[in-house]
């Protein structure tokens, strides 16, 4: 199978990745979740926000234990946990991927210009990074959610805006390393413009660590979304996310007596994050054969 140009850097990396069992399993599990998220309407037996009633009565069927009708039971409002779990994958992944896209774009851009141009640009942006890192994220989000109507977009942007700093630092360091290599000096000697050198020679050569950073950033964004939603400042009801499904576990009764409500979202969360980390580690090893 040839995914990449023969004998190219990525071709070799792909071959090495394939040999790493843990990484392949991680990739498979991740893929499974992605498929689940994409085909949620086909897999889920019910709508995620559909309320169920106790048969023959005008009462919500709350906290129902797993049964044939509800594989994982129902939650505190009488909704099907299994369906919410499957739709929750959509929300969780969308939030994570969009947040990571934002942080990768900002982080890579800032890392490239600070690393390449250095001096004043570097000093200014690195201080901004320091400020962003020092920001109390939770406090920020709680404040925002009390002022503005909470929405999924606020969560996405919030995660994106606080997590670009690690990408920026990583990219900056990589640029500093690559920029002094002979082939960059040689490209300079050919009279290539700065833009061309950055885009054609530097960026492609530091894509590998950026890709590793993207996978790890995705896992971290999933965790961040879960904690924010768990605290009620993330994805809001009735939209299901794995984080806000765990909110029910804040009640002692649920935590003690109704494990079907919080164990499944907890487990899928753990599984997906772990799978993505395995992929990230696999990528890192595949890109760096010396390790």
């Amino acid at each position, binding site marked *: 199978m040839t995914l990449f140009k023969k004998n190219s850097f990525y071709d070799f990396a792909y071959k090495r990745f394939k040999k790493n069992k843990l990484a392949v399993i991680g990739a498979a599990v991740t893929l499974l979740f992605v498929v689940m998220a994409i085909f949620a309407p086909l897999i889920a037996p019910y709508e995620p926000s559909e309320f169920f009633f106790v048969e023959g009565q005008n009462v919500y069927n709350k906290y129902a234990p797993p049964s044939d009708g509800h594989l994982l039971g129902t939650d505190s409002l009488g909704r099907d946990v299994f369906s919410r779990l499957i739709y929750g994958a959509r929300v969780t992944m969308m939030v994570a991927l969009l947040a990571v896209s934002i942080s990768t774009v900002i982080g890579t851009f800032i890392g490239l210009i600070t690393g390449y141009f250095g001096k004043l640009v570097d000093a200014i942006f690195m201080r901004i990074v320091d400020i962003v890192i020092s920001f109390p994220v939770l406090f920020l989000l709680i404040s925002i959610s009390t002022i503005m109507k909470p929405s999924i977009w606020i969560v996405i942007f919030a995660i994106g805006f606080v997590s670009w700093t690690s990408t920026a630092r990583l990219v900056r360091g990589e640029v500093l390393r690559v920029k002094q290599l002979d082939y960059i000096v040689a490209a300079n000697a*050919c*009279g290539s413009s700065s833009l061309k050198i950055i885009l054609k020679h530097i960026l492609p*050569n530091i894509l590998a660590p950026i890709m590793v950073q993207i996978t790890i950033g995705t896992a971290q964004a999933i965790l961040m979304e879960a904690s924010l939603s768990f605290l009620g400042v993330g994805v809001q009801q009735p939209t299901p996310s794995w984080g806000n499904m765990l909110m029910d576990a804040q009640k002692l009764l649920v935590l003690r007596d109704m494990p079907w409500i919080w164990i499944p979202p907890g487990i899928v969360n753990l599984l997906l994050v772990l799978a993505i980390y395995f992929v990230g580690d696999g990528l890192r090893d595949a890109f760096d054969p010396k390790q």
Partner: protein
Amino acid sequence: MKPSNTTPGSPLPSNKKPLLQVKDLSVKFRTEEGMFFAVEHISFDLEEQKTLAIVGESGSGKSVTSLAIMQLLAENGKITSGEIFIDDEDILKLSQRQVQHSILGKKISMIFQEPMTALNPILKVGEQIMETIIEHQGASRKEAYAIALDTLKQVGIPSPEQRIKQYPHELSGGMRQRVMIAMGLVTKPKIMIADEPTTALDVTIEAQILNLLENLKETYKTAILFVTHDLNVVADIADDVIVMYCGEIIEKGPVADIFETPRHPYTIGLLATMPSLDNDNDILPTIRGVVPNITKRPTGCYFHPRCDHAMPQCAQRSPAVFQVGQQAVKCFLYEQDALGVQDGPGVQDGPGAGEVNHG
């Protein structure tokens, strides 16, 4: 051998216009301990189809000189004075953009020492050669491909149609150096700077590459500035030689003259260290001492602590440049000769005469 027609600092009128003219170039580097000169008052001319070799030990400033001409000095390096003329245009007066656009890669190109690292590992060699053509000649990709293929043929790469689609790691060191040369040649620049292009290669490949450079010089009518520490290579390829020590030109002249009658004690020492077949010595001669650090240069003549002919004045002031025959020497030993009759009997008293002519 055509005579060198300049002396450092004061170029004499020449019948041929030099392609590259460096006048009084000085470069300073900022270090933890302050600003220090890496090269000082470098002047030379390079004419069409000539090869000028810059020779010196590590730290003599030969690479800094070539990087300064290419304006590729590291961030802590700065050209503090001097002019660099390419086609009668002082490129130090141009903006960075103008230099990128109309000088580098177009009029002057550079071949690097390490072919293993001087090629972008994730671009196919064809791409890298084509880049310069597209950048400078505004050619379409198709035209650029044809030119790149042709250039690969010119530099003697077998089955170029196949090689052009390969990545650098699929080529041997010699092949990569040929690719580097092709990259430098593809826009037909008038001047090529070769910074120790054969140091990383084994001797058989070295001979091939030198041969190639020689041929290309004829075909493309380029001038080559050849930076090296290898005197055998200099003897092979150069027309004129500049000997550098501690960032200064200490001797300059036609290659035959320098090799036959080296004047400066350092040059003499350097040539004596060359292994030769008709020399039965078990131990190769060396120059005692080491090149002083850039931050701790001696007073007066930089070479005097290592010099067997040092005089009291050598420690006090830096010698001027004296013209002896075709050679320009920065040494007090030649003060008399330069003032008096050139190539007179006085020269015989110089250290060069004793050790090389009659030795």
